[in-house]
Protein backbone atom coordinates (compact mmCIF):
# COMPACT_ATOMS: atom_id res chain seq x y z
CA UNK A 1 0.00 0.00 0.00
CA UNK A 2 1.40 3.41 -0.96
CA UNK A 3 0.35 6.72 0.48
CA UNK A 4 0.76 10.33 -0.54
CA UNK A 5 2.07 11.19 2.92
CA UNK A 6 5.77 11.95 3.06
CA UNK A 7 7.00 9.69 5.86
CA UNK A 8 10.46 11.21 6.06
CA UNK A 9 11.53 14.67 4.83
CA UNK A 10 14.74 15.75 3.12
CA UNK A 11 16.37 16.52 6.50
CA UNK A 12 15.73 12.97 7.69
CA UNK A 13 12.94 14.10 10.04
CA UNK A 14 10.06 11.66 10.45
CA UNK A 15 6.34 12.45 10.87
CA UNK A 16 6.63 12.64 14.66
CA UNK A 17 9.85 14.64 14.47
CA UNK A 18 12.18 11.73 15.18
CA UNK A 19 15.48 11.16 13.39
CA UNK A 20 16.07 7.84 11.60
CA UNK A 21 17.69 6.15 14.62
CA UNK A 22 15.45 7.57 17.36
CA UNK A 23 12.99 5.40 19.26
CA UNK A 24 9.61 6.57 20.45
CA UNK A 25 9.42 7.53 24.17
CA UNK A 26 9.39 4.46 26.43
CA UNK A 27 8.18 4.20 30.01
CA UNK A 28 8.45 0.95 31.98
CA UNK A 29 7.18 0.14 35.46
CA UNK A 30 7.78 -3.19 37.20
CA UNK A 31 5.53 -4.90 39.77
CA UNK A 32 2.24 -3.16 39.05
CA UNK A 33 -0.17 -6.04 39.67
CA UNK A 34 -1.00 -7.51 43.07
CA UNK A 35 -1.95 -11.12 42.27
CA UNK A 36 0.68 -11.88 39.66
CA UNK A 37 4.06 -13.38 40.59
CA UNK A 38 5.64 -10.71 38.46
CA UNK A 39 4.26 -7.92 36.32
CA UNK A 40 5.13 -4.97 34.17
CA UNK A 41 3.40 -1.97 32.62
CA UNK A 42 5.01 -0.53 29.54
CA UNK A 43 4.27 2.45 27.34
CA UNK A 44 6.11 2.68 24.03
CA UNK A 45 4.94 5.54 21.84
CA UNK A 46 1.18 4.98 21.63
CA UNK A 47 1.41 1.36 22.80
CA UNK A 48 0.24 0.46 26.27
CA UNK A 49 1.00 -3.08 27.38
CA UNK A 50 0.45 -4.92 30.64
CA UNK A 51 2.18 -8.23 31.37
CA UNK A 52 1.56 -10.67 34.22
CA UNK A 53 3.76 -13.69 34.92
CA UNK A 54 2.43 -16.70 36.84
CA UNK A 55 4.64 -19.59 37.81
CA UNK A 56 6.61 -21.71 37.79
CA UNK A 57 3.56 -23.78 38.68
CA UNK A 58 2.32 -27.26 37.79
CA UNK A 59 1.61 -27.46 34.09
CA UNK A 60 -1.96 -28.42 33.27
CA UNK A 61 -3.21 -30.37 31.37
CA UNK A 62 -0.70 -32.95 32.54
CA UNK A 63 0.09 -34.21 29.05
CA UNK A 64 1.55 -30.79 28.34
CA UNK A 65 4.23 -31.35 30.98
CA UNK A 66 7.81 -31.91 29.97
CA UNK A 67 9.69 -34.16 32.44
CA UNK A 68 12.97 -32.40 31.65
CA UNK A 69 12.06 -28.74 31.78
CA UNK A 70 9.39 -26.10 32.24
CA UNK A 71 7.16 -25.06 29.36
CA UNK A 72 6.77 -21.36 28.63
CA UNK A 73 3.28 -20.22 27.64
CA UNK A 74 3.26 -16.66 26.40
CA UNK A 75 -0.25 -15.48 25.53
CA UNK A 76 -0.43 -12.32 23.48
CA UNK A 77 -3.89 -10.82 23.63
CA UNK A 78 -5.24 -7.59 22.17
CA UNK A 79 -8.03 -5.80 23.96
CA UNK A 80 -11.10 -5.28 21.76
CA UNK A 81 -10.77 -1.51 22.19
CA UNK A 82 -7.03 -1.34 21.48
CA UNK A 83 -7.37 -0.78 17.74
CA UNK A 84 -9.29 1.53 15.38
CA UNK A 85 -11.90 -1.07 14.29
CA UNK A 86 -13.00 -3.13 17.27
CA UNK A 87 -11.12 -6.39 17.43
CA UNK A 88 -13.22 -9.47 18.06
CA UNK A 89 -12.19 -10.73 21.50
CA UNK A 90 -10.25 -13.95 21.82
CA UNK A 91 -7.23 -15.36 20.02
CA UNK A 92 -7.08 -14.94 16.25
CA UNK A 93 -4.46 -16.33 13.88
CA UNK A 94 -2.23 -13.31 14.22
CA UNK A 95 -2.15 -13.32 18.01
CA UNK A 96 -1.58 -17.07 18.13
CA UNK A 97 1.42 -16.76 15.85
CA UNK A 98 2.81 -13.89 17.94
CA UNK A 99 2.24 -15.94 21.13
CA UNK A 100 4.21 -18.79 19.60
CA UNK A 101 7.23 -16.76 18.50
CA UNK A 102 7.36 -14.87 21.82
CA UNK A 103 7.12 -18.15 23.81
CA UNK A 104 10.01 -19.57 21.81
CA UNK A 105 12.10 -16.43 22.30
CA UNK A 106 11.53 -16.42 26.08
CA UNK A 107 12.35 -20.13 26.36
CA UNK A 108 15.87 -19.39 25.16
CA UNK A 109 16.69 -17.12 28.13
CA UNK A 110 14.66 -18.80 30.91
CA UNK A 111 16.48 -21.61 32.77
CA UNK A 112 13.60 -23.98 32.11
CA UNK A 113 15.58 -27.09 33.11
CA UNK A 114 15.35 -25.94 36.75
CA UNK A 115 11.58 -26.54 36.79
CA UNK A 116 10.69 -29.90 35.24
CA UNK A 117 6.96 -30.48 34.67
CA UNK A 118 6.19 -26.83 35.43
CA UNK A 119 4.61 -24.09 33.37
CA UNK A 120 5.60 -20.46 33.29
CA UNK A 121 2.65 -18.42 32.04
CA UNK A 122 3.31 -15.01 30.55
CA UNK A 123 0.13 -13.09 29.83
CA UNK A 124 0.65 -10.14 27.53
CA UNK A 125 -2.29 -7.78 27.30
CA UNK A 126 -2.20 -5.05 24.67
CA UNK A 127 -4.43 -2.24 25.94
CA UNK A 128 -3.61 0.34 23.31
CA UNK A 129 -1.95 -0.53 20.05
CA UNK A 130 0.12 1.64 17.75
CA UNK A 131 2.66 -0.37 15.71
CA UNK A 132 5.29 -2.59 17.27
CA UNK A 133 3.10 -4.33 19.86
CA UNK A 134 5.01 -7.63 19.69
CA UNK A 135 8.27 -5.81 20.51
CA UNK A 136 6.57 -3.90 23.31
CA UNK A 137 4.99 -7.11 24.61
CA UNK A 138 8.21 -9.10 24.60
CA UNK A 139 10.14 -6.25 26.25
CA UNK A 140 7.51 -5.95 28.99
CA UNK A 141 7.52 -9.74 29.40
CA UNK A 142 11.27 -9.61 30.06
CA UNK A 143 10.76 -7.15 32.92
CA UNK A 144 7.79 -9.08 34.34
CA UNK A 145 9.80 -12.33 34.33
CA UNK A 146 12.65 -10.61 36.18
CA UNK A 147 10.10 -9.15 38.59
CA UNK A 148 8.72 -12.65 39.19
CA UNK A 149 12.23 -13.83 40.08
CA UNK A 150 12.29 -16.40 37.29
CA UNK A 151 15.93 -17.46 36.72
CA UNK A 152 17.12 -16.29 33.33
CA UNK A 153 20.43 -16.01 31.54
CA UNK A 154 19.49 -12.48 30.52
CA UNK A 155 16.57 -10.05 30.31
CA UNK A 156 15.22 -10.42 26.76
CA UNK A 157 14.53 -7.22 24.88
CA UNK A 158 13.01 -6.38 21.53
CA UNK A 159 12.97 -3.52 19.04
CA UNK A 160 12.00 -3.22 15.39
CA UNK A 161 13.54 -1.44 12.44
CA UNK A 162 12.14 -0.96 8.97
CA UNK A 163 12.17 0.98 5.75
CA UNK A 164 10.07 4.05 4.96
CA UNK A 165 10.21 5.97 1.68
CA UNK A 166 13.46 4.14 0.90
CA UNK A 167 15.16 5.06 4.20
CA UNK A 168 16.09 2.52 6.87
CA UNK A 169 14.84 3.68 10.27
CA UNK A 170 14.41 2.32 13.78
CA UNK A 171 11.11 1.62 15.58
CA UNK A 172 8.31 2.21 13.06
CA UNK A 173 5.39 4.38 14.15
CA UNK A 174 1.76 3.92 13.11
CA UNK A 175 1.77 5.53 9.65
CA UNK A 176 5.27 4.19 9.01
CA UNK A 177 4.06 0.67 9.71
CA UNK A 178 0.95 1.07 7.52
CA UNK A 179 2.63 2.76 4.56
CA UNK A 180 6.27 1.74 4.96
CA UNK A 181 8.22 -0.69 2.76
CA UNK A 182 9.45 -3.19 5.36
CA UNK A 183 9.23 -4.10 9.02
CA UNK A 184 11.88 -6.11 10.89
CA UNK A 185 11.12 -6.96 14.51
CA UNK A 186 14.16 -8.33 16.35
CA UNK A 187 14.60 -9.61 19.91
CA UNK A 188 17.96 -10.37 21.46
CA UNK A 189 19.61 -11.53 24.61
CA UNK A 190 21.47 -8.23 25.17
CA UNK A 191 24.55 -9.61 26.97
CA UNK A 192 25.47 -11.86 24.04
CA UNK A 193 23.56 -10.27 21.15
CA UNK A 194 22.10 -13.69 20.31
CA UNK A 195 18.98 -13.25 18.19
CA UNK A 196 15.95 -14.92 19.79
CA UNK A 197 13.21 -13.48 17.59
CA UNK A 198 13.47 -12.37 13.99
CA UNK A 199 10.68 -11.72 11.53
CA UNK A 200 10.55 -9.62 8.40
CA UNK A 201 8.04 -8.63 5.81
CA UNK A 202 8.31 -6.16 3.01
CA UNK A 203 11.29 -5.60 0.74
CA UNK A 204 14.92 -5.07 1.80
CA UNK A 205 18.15 -5.47 -0.15
CA UNK A 206 20.93 -7.31 1.65
CA UNK A 207 22.64 -4.00 2.54
CA UNK A 208 19.38 -2.52 3.81
CA UNK A 209 18.76 -5.63 5.86
CA UNK A 210 22.18 -5.37 7.51
CA UNK A 211 21.59 -1.70 8.27
CA UNK A 212 18.10 -2.33 9.63
CA UNK A 213 19.29 -5.30 11.68
CA UNK A 214 22.04 -3.20 13.30
CA UNK A 215 19.58 -0.37 14.01
CA UNK A 216 17.17 -2.82 15.66
CA UNK A 217 19.94 -4.35 17.78
CA UNK A 218 21.11 -0.88 18.84
CA UNK A 219 17.51 -0.05 19.71
CA UNK A 220 17.35 -3.21 21.83
CA UNK A 221 20.37 -2.06 23.83
CA UNK A 222 18.78 1.36 24.45
CA UNK A 223 15.55 -0.29 25.64
CA UNK A 224 17.53 -2.80 27.73
CA UNK A 225 18.87 0.06 29.88
CA UNK A 226 15.33 1.34 30.48
CA UNK A 227 14.26 -2.21 31.48
CA UNK A 228 17.06 -2.51 34.03
CA UNK A 229 16.27 0.91 35.47
CA UNK A 230 12.60 -0.06 35.86
CA UNK A 231 13.53 -3.14 37.89
CA UNK A 232 15.99 -1.18 40.06
CA UNK A 233 13.40 1.56 40.59
CA UNK A 234 10.93 -0.91 42.05
CA UNK A 235 13.34 -1.90 44.82
CA UNK A 236 14.52 1.68 45.27
CA UNK A 237 10.98 2.85 45.99
CA UNK A 238 10.34 -0.19 48.19
CA UNK A 239 13.39 0.54 50.34
CA UNK A 240 12.53 4.25 50.54
CA UNK A 241 9.06 3.37 51.79
CA UNK A 242 10.49 1.41 54.68
Amino acid at each position, binding site marked *: *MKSDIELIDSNGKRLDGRGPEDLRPIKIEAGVLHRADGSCYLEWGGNKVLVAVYGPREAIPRHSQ*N*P*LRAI*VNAKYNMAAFSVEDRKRPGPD*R*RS*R*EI*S*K*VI*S*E*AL*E*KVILTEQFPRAAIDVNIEVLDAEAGTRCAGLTAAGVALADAGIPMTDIPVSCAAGKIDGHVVADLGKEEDNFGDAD*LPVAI*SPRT*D*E*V*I*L*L*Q*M*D*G*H*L*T*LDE*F*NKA*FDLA*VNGCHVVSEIQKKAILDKYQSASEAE
Partner: protein
Amino acid sequence: MTVVPIIKRDHICKLAEQGKRVDGRNFGEYRKIEIETGVVSKAEGSARVKIGNTQVMAGIKMDVGEPYSDSPDSGVMTTAAELIPLASPDFESGPPRANAIELARVVDRGVRESEVIELDKLCIEPGEKVWIVFIDLHILDYDGNLFDAASLAALAALSTAKVPAKRFELGDDYPLPLKEPPISCTSVKFNNVVAIDPSLDEEEIADARLTVATDTNGDIRAMQKGLNGSFTREEIQKVIKASIDNGREIRKQLYENIGK
Protein backbone atom coordinates in the same frame (compact mmCIF):
# COMPACT_ATOMS: atom_id res chain seq x y z
CA MET B 1 8.87 -40.33 26.37
CA THR B 2 11.91 -38.13 26.02
CA VAL B 3 14.65 -40.75 25.84
CA VAL B 4 14.39 -41.42 22.13
CA PRO B 5 14.74 -37.76 21.10
CA ILE B 6 17.83 -37.45 23.32
CA ILE B 7 19.46 -40.49 21.72
CA LYS B 8 18.51 -39.18 18.31
CA ARG B 9 19.92 -35.79 19.15
CA ASP B 10 23.22 -37.28 20.29
CA HIS B 11 23.43 -39.34 17.12
CA ILE B 12 22.72 -36.42 14.78
CA CYS B 13 25.12 -34.12 16.65
CA LYS B 14 27.87 -36.74 16.58
CA LEU B 15 27.44 -37.09 12.82
CA ALA B 16 27.47 -33.28 12.51
CA GLU B 17 30.85 -33.15 14.25
CA GLN B 18 32.15 -35.41 11.49
CA GLY B 19 30.59 -33.08 8.94
CA LYS B 20 27.78 -35.50 8.04
CA ARG B 21 23.99 -35.49 8.05
CA VAL B 22 21.65 -38.41 8.76
CA ASP B 23 20.61 -38.77 5.14
CA GLY B 24 24.14 -38.35 3.79
CA ARG B 25 23.72 -34.79 2.49
CA ASN B 26 26.12 -31.84 2.90
CA PHE B 27 25.00 -29.06 5.23
CA GLY B 28 24.41 -26.84 2.20
CA GLU B 29 22.66 -29.46 0.09
CA TYR B 30 18.94 -29.24 -0.63
CA ARG B 31 16.88 -32.41 -1.15
CA LYS B 32 15.43 -33.27 -4.56
CA ILE B 33 12.38 -31.20 -5.43
CA GLU B 34 9.52 -32.40 -7.60
CA ILE B 35 6.75 -30.08 -8.74
CA GLU B 36 3.58 -31.27 -10.41
CA THR B 37 0.83 -28.85 -11.39
CA GLY B 38 -2.80 -29.25 -12.44
CA VAL B 39 -3.42 -32.21 -10.17
CA VAL B 40 -6.98 -31.29 -9.14
CA SER B 41 -9.51 -30.57 -11.87
CA LYS B 42 -12.09 -28.83 -9.68
CA ALA B 43 -9.59 -26.29 -8.37
CA GLU B 44 -8.75 -23.06 -10.21
CA GLY B 45 -5.09 -24.00 -9.80
CA SER B 46 -3.32 -26.81 -7.98
CA ALA B 47 0.09 -28.29 -7.36
CA ARG B 48 1.80 -31.10 -5.54
CA VAL B 49 5.31 -30.45 -4.34
CA LYS B 50 7.74 -33.01 -2.98
CA ILE B 51 10.91 -32.08 -1.14
CA GLY B 52 12.56 -35.43 -0.41
CA ASN B 53 9.80 -37.41 1.33
CA THR B 54 7.83 -34.33 2.32
CA GLN B 55 4.70 -33.86 0.22
CA VAL B 56 2.41 -30.85 0.20
CA MET B 57 -0.59 -30.18 -1.98
CA ALA B 58 -1.91 -26.70 -2.65
CA GLY B 59 -5.23 -25.82 -4.22
CA ILE B 60 -6.53 -22.43 -5.32
CA LYS B 61 -10.25 -21.70 -5.29
CA MET B 62 -11.78 -18.38 -6.20
CA ASP B 63 -15.06 -16.75 -5.40
CA VAL B 64 -16.71 -13.37 -5.80
CA GLY B 65 -17.21 -11.40 -2.62
CA GLU B 66 -16.99 -8.03 -0.91
CA PRO B 67 -13.67 -6.20 -0.53
CA TYR B 68 -12.30 -4.99 2.80
CA SER B 69 -13.41 -1.46 3.66
CA ASP B 70 -9.83 -0.18 3.76
CA SER B 71 -9.02 -1.46 0.26
CA PRO B 72 -12.31 -1.20 -1.69
CA ASP B 73 -10.75 -1.70 -5.12
CA SER B 74 -8.50 -4.68 -4.60
CA GLY B 75 -9.13 -8.41 -4.38
CA VAL B 76 -8.83 -10.46 -1.22
CA MET B 77 -6.57 -13.44 -0.48
CA THR B 78 -6.58 -15.89 2.41
CA THR B 79 -4.30 -18.79 3.23
CA ALA B 80 -5.11 -21.82 5.35
CA ALA B 81 -2.96 -24.82 6.18
CA GLU B 82 -4.13 -28.17 7.47
CA LEU B 83 -1.80 -30.60 9.18
CA ILE B 84 -4.04 -33.58 8.56
CA PRO B 85 -3.52 -36.87 10.48
CA LEU B 86 -2.72 -38.60 7.20
CA ALA B 87 0.66 -36.90 7.07
CA SER B 88 2.16 -37.84 10.42
CA PRO B 89 1.37 -39.89 13.54
CA ASP B 90 1.80 -36.64 15.50
CA PHE B 91 -0.90 -34.69 13.67
CA GLU B 92 -4.42 -34.67 15.04
CA SER B 93 -7.63 -33.61 13.40
CA GLY B 94 -9.57 -30.64 14.65
CA PRO B 95 -9.12 -26.89 14.49
CA PRO B 96 -5.65 -25.68 13.43
CA ARG B 97 -3.05 -25.42 16.20
CA ALA B 98 -0.19 -22.96 16.56
CA ASN B 99 2.04 -24.90 14.12
CA ALA B 100 -0.54 -24.88 11.33
CA ILE B 101 -1.34 -21.23 11.95
CA GLU B 102 2.30 -20.18 11.85
CA LEU B 103 2.79 -22.17 8.63
CA ALA B 104 -0.24 -20.60 6.95
CA ARG B 105 0.75 -17.11 8.04
CA VAL B 106 4.35 -17.44 6.87
CA VAL B 107 3.19 -18.69 3.45
CA ASP B 108 0.56 -15.93 3.37
CA ARG B 109 3.12 -13.21 4.15
CA GLY B 110 5.47 -14.52 1.45
CA VAL B 111 2.71 -14.17 -1.13
CA ARG B 112 0.97 -11.06 0.19
CA GLU B 113 3.85 -8.76 1.14
CA SER B 114 5.69 -9.32 -2.11
CA GLU B 115 2.44 -8.73 -4.02
CA VAL B 116 2.75 -11.94 -6.05
CA ILE B 117 -0.98 -11.86 -6.77
CA GLU B 118 -1.86 -8.55 -8.37
CA LEU B 119 -4.83 -7.96 -6.13
CA ASP B 120 -5.54 -4.53 -7.63
CA LYS B 121 -6.38 -6.29 -10.92
CA LEU B 122 -8.95 -8.49 -9.18
CA CYS B 123 -11.54 -5.77 -8.66
CA ILE B 124 -14.89 -6.31 -10.38
CA GLU B 125 -16.92 -3.34 -9.03
CA PRO B 126 -15.03 -0.99 -6.65
CA GLY B 127 -16.33 -1.27 -3.10
CA GLU B 128 -18.89 -3.90 -4.11
CA LYS B 129 -17.49 -6.96 -5.82
CA VAL B 130 -13.97 -8.35 -5.98
CA TRP B 131 -12.32 -11.71 -6.53
CA ILE B 132 -11.38 -13.66 -3.42
CA VAL B 133 -8.42 -16.04 -3.76
CA PHE B 134 -8.33 -18.96 -1.34
CA ILE B 135 -5.00 -20.74 -0.97
CA ASP B 136 -5.48 -24.05 0.82
CA LEU B 137 -2.49 -26.15 1.82
CA HIS B 138 -2.76 -29.83 2.61
CA ILE B 139 0.23 -31.55 4.13
CA LEU B 140 0.27 -35.12 2.79
CA ASP B 141 3.55 -36.53 4.09
CA TYR B 142 5.64 -34.83 6.74
CA ASP B 143 9.39 -35.33 6.59
CA GLY B 144 10.50 -31.86 7.60
CA ASN B 145 10.70 -28.40 6.05
CA LEU B 146 7.00 -27.73 5.58
CA PHE B 147 7.61 -23.99 5.23
CA ASP B 148 9.51 -24.32 1.94
CA ALA B 149 7.31 -27.12 0.59
CA ALA B 150 4.09 -25.27 1.39
CA SER B 151 5.18 -21.93 -0.05
CA LEU B 152 6.53 -23.58 -3.20
CA ALA B 153 3.27 -25.52 -3.61
CA ALA B 154 1.27 -22.32 -3.15
CA LEU B 155 3.34 -20.51 -5.78
CA ALA B 156 3.16 -23.40 -8.26
CA ALA B 157 -0.62 -23.63 -7.79
CA LEU B 158 -1.04 -19.86 -8.19
CA SER B 159 1.11 -19.87 -11.34
CA THR B 160 -1.28 -22.25 -13.05
CA ALA B 161 -4.51 -20.76 -11.69
CA LYS B 162 -7.22 -19.44 -13.99
CA VAL B 163 -9.76 -16.85 -12.87
CA PRO B 164 -13.12 -18.65 -13.30
CA ALA B 165 -14.89 -15.66 -14.84
CA LYS B 166 -17.15 -17.80 -17.02
CA ARG B 167 -18.66 -19.61 -14.03
CA PHE B 168 -19.72 -16.26 -12.57
CA GLU B 169 -20.85 -14.91 -15.96
CA LEU B 170 -18.15 -12.27 -15.99
CA GLY B 171 -16.65 -13.00 -19.39
CA ASP B 172 -13.96 -15.49 -20.35
CA ASP B 173 -11.58 -17.24 -17.97
CA TYR B 174 -8.11 -15.71 -17.84
CA PRO B 175 -4.85 -16.52 -16.04
CA LEU B 176 -4.50 -15.14 -12.52
CA PRO B 177 -2.41 -11.93 -12.78
CA LEU B 178 0.91 -12.59 -11.03
CA LYS B 179 4.29 -10.98 -10.45
CA GLU B 180 7.65 -12.65 -9.91
CA PRO B 181 7.40 -14.76 -6.77
CA PRO B 182 9.93 -14.78 -3.92
CA ILE B 183 11.26 -18.24 -3.00
CA SER B 184 11.43 -19.40 0.63
CA CYS B 185 14.43 -21.29 1.93
CA THR B 186 14.68 -22.68 5.44
CA SER B 187 17.76 -23.55 7.46
CA VAL B 188 18.08 -24.94 10.96
CA LYS B 189 20.83 -24.77 13.55
CA PHE B 190 21.86 -27.64 15.81
CA ASN B 191 25.08 -28.27 17.67
CA ASN B 192 26.30 -24.93 16.26
CA VAL B 193 26.11 -26.05 12.63
CA VAL B 194 23.68 -24.55 10.16
CA ALA B 195 21.98 -26.97 7.75
CA ILE B 196 19.66 -26.09 4.87
CA ASP B 197 16.37 -27.90 4.16
CA PRO B 198 16.04 -29.87 7.43
CA SER B 199 14.63 -33.38 7.37
CA LEU B 200 12.15 -34.33 10.11
CA ASP B 201 14.89 -35.86 12.29
CA GLU B 202 16.91 -32.66 12.10
CA GLU B 203 13.90 -30.45 12.61
CA GLU B 204 12.92 -32.32 15.77
CA ILE B 205 16.27 -31.81 17.44
CA ALA B 206 17.07 -28.35 16.02
CA ASP B 207 17.70 -25.37 18.31
CA ALA B 208 16.56 -22.70 15.90
CA ARG B 209 15.07 -22.34 12.46
CA LEU B 210 15.19 -19.44 10.01
CA THR B 211 13.15 -19.06 6.82
CA VAL B 212 14.19 -16.40 4.32
CA ALA B 213 12.24 -15.54 1.16
CA THR B 214 14.27 -13.90 -1.59
CA ASP B 215 13.30 -12.45 -4.97
CA THR B 216 14.94 -12.45 -8.43
CA ASN B 217 17.23 -9.54 -7.45
CA GLY B 218 18.44 -11.42 -4.40
CA ASP B 219 16.53 -9.00 -2.15
CA ILE B 220 14.89 -10.21 1.04
CA ARG B 221 11.08 -10.29 1.01
CA ALA B 222 10.18 -12.12 4.23
CA MET B 223 11.83 -13.77 7.20
CA GLN B 224 10.66 -15.89 10.10
CA LYS B 225 12.73 -17.28 12.93
CA GLY B 226 11.33 -20.20 14.89
CA LEU B 227 12.11 -22.61 17.75
CA ASN B 228 13.59 -21.77 21.12
CA GLY B 229 17.23 -21.34 20.16
CA SER B 230 19.11 -18.30 18.88
CA PHE B 231 21.18 -17.16 15.91
CA THR B 232 24.24 -14.93 15.85
CA ARG B 233 24.62 -12.12 13.34
CA GLU B 234 27.12 -14.22 11.32
CA GLU B 235 24.81 -17.23 11.22
CA ILE B 236 21.97 -15.05 9.95
CA GLN B 237 24.25 -13.77 7.16
CA LYS B 238 25.11 -17.36 6.25
CA VAL B 239 21.46 -18.42 6.16
CA ILE B 240 20.53 -15.45 3.96
CA LYS B 241 23.32 -16.26 1.50
CA ALA B 242 22.28 -19.92 1.31
CA SER B 243 18.67 -18.84 0.79
CA ILE B 244 19.59 -16.54 -2.09
CA ASP B 245 21.71 -19.24 -3.78
CA ASN B 246 19.22 -22.08 -3.37
CA GLY B 247 16.30 -19.78 -4.10
CA ARG B 248 17.75 -19.12 -7.52
CA GLU B 249 17.91 -22.84 -8.32
CA ILE B 250 14.43 -23.53 -6.98
CA ARG B 251 13.00 -20.63 -9.00
CA LYS B 252 14.57 -22.06 -12.13
CA GLN B 253 12.93 -25.40 -11.46
CA LEU B 254 9.56 -23.79 -10.71
CA TYR B 255 9.67 -21.89 -14.02
CA GLU B 256 10.55 -25.07 -15.93
CA ASN B 257 7.62 -26.88 -14.37
CA ILE B 258 5.05 -24.20 -15.09
CA GLY B 259 6.42 -23.70 -18.61
CA LYS B 260 7.68 -20.15 -18.20
